[in-house]
């Protein structure tokens, strides 16, 4: 990992006001709705771990064009003129995007809990920082690995377009299964989600043996496969910095 690339990725994100706005809107709207619902009916529409559901959305916003944008902006020839190995660049970008998404999930969970309990002892009882932090990091690592691979293949922020398109197809297939009862559609839809949103639940890991399950294996195969693929693609990629 390269600290300088990680810091650049973070600053790059912080210097994109549109993305920050989208991110705040993604987290802020459900929080506001939840807060208003509680004021009216005392019902809790967002539970303690609801922020986990938003982790994928955070990754979408943060990881869009994580490599492709740098390629399109033409900054990579200058970056790679320095003693930076290409695998270092890919891994640093991947880890940073996952960390930012996890931090966003933690902040969302903290705000949600604070809106409900204020900063009382109950806040610390319900704010499950370790569970949310570690589970969102697992989820973010999975999806951002997929996005890093797509971003290494596609220019600009086209990676998020591909993930969005495939997610839409998966949803349509799911609806076809449930409403039209088309056989097999649900299975295809589930597989698309499993590949593009690789994850396993940490709460299911209670013993060492639980690490050797199909879900955990699938997660590691997809995640490492995507990152290895992204490194291989970037190693082969040629950058011409201008025209004669």
């Amino acid at each position: 990992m390269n600290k300088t690339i990680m810091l650049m990725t973070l600053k790059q994100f912080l210097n994109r006001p549109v993305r920050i706005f989208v991110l705040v809107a993604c987290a802020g709207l459900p929080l506001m709705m939840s807060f208003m619902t509680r004021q009216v009916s005392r019902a809790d529409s967002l539970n303690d771990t609801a922020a986990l559901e938003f982790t994928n959305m955070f990754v979408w916003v943060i990881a869009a064009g994580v490599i492709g944008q740098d390629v399109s902006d033409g900054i990579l020839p200058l970056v790679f003129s320095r003693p930076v190995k290409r695998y270092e660049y890919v891994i640093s970008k991947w880890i940073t995007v996952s960390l930012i998404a996890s931090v966003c999930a933690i902040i969302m969970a903290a705000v949600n809990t604070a809106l409900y309990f204020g900063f009382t002892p109950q806040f610390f009882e319900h704010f499950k920082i370790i569970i949310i932090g570690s589970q969102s990091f697992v989820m973010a690592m999975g999806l951002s690995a997929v996005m890093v691979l797509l971003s290494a293949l596609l220019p600009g922020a086209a990676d998020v377009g591909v993930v969005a398109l495939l997610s839409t197809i998966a949803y349509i297939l799911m609806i076809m299964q449930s409403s039209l009862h088309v056989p097999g559609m649900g299975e295809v839809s589930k597989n698309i989600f499993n590949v593009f949103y690789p994850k396993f639940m940490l709460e299911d890991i209670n013993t060492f043996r639980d690490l050797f399950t199909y879900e955990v294996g699938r997660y590691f195969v997809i995640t490492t496969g995507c990152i290895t693929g992204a490194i291989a693609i970037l190693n082969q990629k040629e950058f011409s910095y201008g025209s004669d």
Partner: protein
Amino acid sequence: MSTAISAVDLTKEFASGRVKALNKLTLSIEPGEIFGIIGPNGAGKTTFMSCLLGALYPTSGTLLIDGKNPDDIEVHRWLGYLPERLEFTKWMTGMELMKFHAGLLNQPAKTPDTKIEQLLERVQLDRPAWTRKIKNYSRGMLQRVGMAQALLGEPRLLLLDEPSSGLDPVGVKLFQQLLREEKAKGTTIVINSHQLDQLEKICDRVAFIKSGIVQTLEVMKDTVARDGLLALKWSLEANEKVTSELVEKAVADAGATVQTFEFPTALVNISGEEMSARVISNLALAGVAPAQAFPNEGRLESIFLQSATSDSRGTP
């Protein structure tokens, strides 16, 4: 003396071999040399520079920098690069860009702020611009911060693409001075540029590339002594005194020939700077000293035009 850069039969093909940007290019650059690369558009200059940078991989042939592959991480520890398209991370300030590159060099500790400040001062980037975002920089300012980042880490090899484009005359002079200072430190400098008059002033050797091969390789001190045209201009008040006969005689006595004379200007064919000085001195002795005397066309420019109009094998 060992070779700093050695290219042997370097070939780079694009579009499945339909386009040959470099066609068995063979070239060697000595350590501590300022080496210019010129050629028409599409000649393969940028492709060659991209291969040197390790950004493009040659299709065949060998390219070595101090005996190592250009994409060797060791090479990149002492390589400084100024791109033609200044695609810097535009949201950074000049100072942030410098710190970012010091970080990429893995030497933030060895590159304290004072060192960065010295470099920014060396390229004469205005102090208020240091903390301004790069997206607000003028072309000249980008060029200056680009040169400053290229000089980070005291590079042994500098790859510069159009270093003086967008610079004002003061900036051009400054860059020439900077390159001379770097050369004095033993840095090998490769410049890709269309500013032939500037290359003429600073380069030790210049390669003319066309169709992916080196057509001519000029040693600049030899080039300076070559044939050329001297343009003479007299003041309008000297109309009565300056006659065709007087000028032709003074020029002939210096061993040169008058190509054209039409008062107040004349073009004289000369061979080298000594002859040029003799022509001017003879004219002064004859009482018809010109108000201005200058090379009508840069010598590199005439080589460029001559080579550019010949075919790829150098036959006119």
